């Protein structure tokens, strides 16, 4: 448990998804999902959310960004 108290923060929380996939392909889960129509829009949404919430963008590839929040 010691390492959790030190360093930059606690465990990251899955905060949101931004994806190019269709709603039929990606759904459910605990985080809100934003559907983008192309890469430009996906990046725009991800940038906006990170500016608002201090979240970190991670590229899961195959069209999906996940946004995590280091509480």
């Amino acid at each position, binding site marked *: 448990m010691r*390492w959790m108290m*030190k*360093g*930059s923060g606690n465990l990251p929380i899955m905060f949101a998804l931004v994806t190019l996939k269709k709603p039929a392909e990606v759904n459910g889960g605990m985080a809100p999902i934003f559907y983008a129509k192309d890469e430009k829009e996906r*990046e725009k949404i*991800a*940038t906006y959310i*990170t*500016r608002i919430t*201090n979240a*970190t*963008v*991670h*590229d899961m*590839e195959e069209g999906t*960004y*996940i946004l995590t929040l*280091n509480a």
Partner: protein
Amino acid sequence: MAKVAMPALPLIIGLLFGFVTRFVTLRIDYRQYPGYPAGYTSHLTFGFIAAFIGALVVPAFIAKEYTAVSFLALAAQQFSQIRMVERKSLESIEQYTLVKRGPEYIEGIARTFEQRNYLTMLVGMISSAAASWMWWAGIVVGLAGIGVSLLAKSGETIGDLMWVRPGKLWFERTLLYVDDVMMMEVGMPHPRERYLRDGMGVVLEPKNPLGQAVLWDLSQREAMVYDAVQMVGVQKDVGYPEQTPLCRMEMPGASGRAALSIIPVEKDMKALIEAVQGTPVLESTKANPLVSKYIKQLKKKGRKGAVDDEGKR
């Protein structure tokens, strides 16, 4: 009971050497501490008081002023407050620092300040004790005390335990690497571009098992990152976690190597390496039982690399 007059000369000699000890052990460098005039004043004042208390002990004993001696013990206890004061002030600064020292580094600094005050008191005491015997003996002992405290001042640094060399920053798709050490995942394209354009990386290779054990300690790596940031600066603002300077071990290979990545304000590799090498080895790292076992073994065997393959000692 006839009172013996308290001799003034040992007191003066003890005070002088004690104060000089505090003065030479007070330093400022790129770690920026104390780094401001108020810090100097308060620490020199504390040092003066400590030297005075130390110098007073033996002459007070000689003059049979036992009440005075017991009061001195009380005053000495007050000096443990110094650690608390230092810790508090460093912690309050830390609130608005994006790259933090970490609690163990702060504790180490606070302890050092406290310890140097006791050192001051000790030098004052032994030199005044010697001066009570012969005045020139006081001067000799005082000079020796200053020499010893100068030696004690320079503890072990990272540069003693590991080689630090420049590393190449590169991306495997979105994963940031320094040489073969994976640092983190950078999702957006523009921080990746910035890393490739402005970023710097160094690789740390431990010289011996002790070095490796020190490197596995997270707070030690945080301290290195902090010192690197103090030296070359960092391009980081609130809400840009991708640009956090990091120091990570080579995983999952667990070869014991680590790497440090940073987007500096001033891209100066020599300065960065110097900062990493100059980071003090934290006391809390040494308190790790494995490490202290290694230290014992290293001292016993007198060679680098303490344990052979079967783990025999």
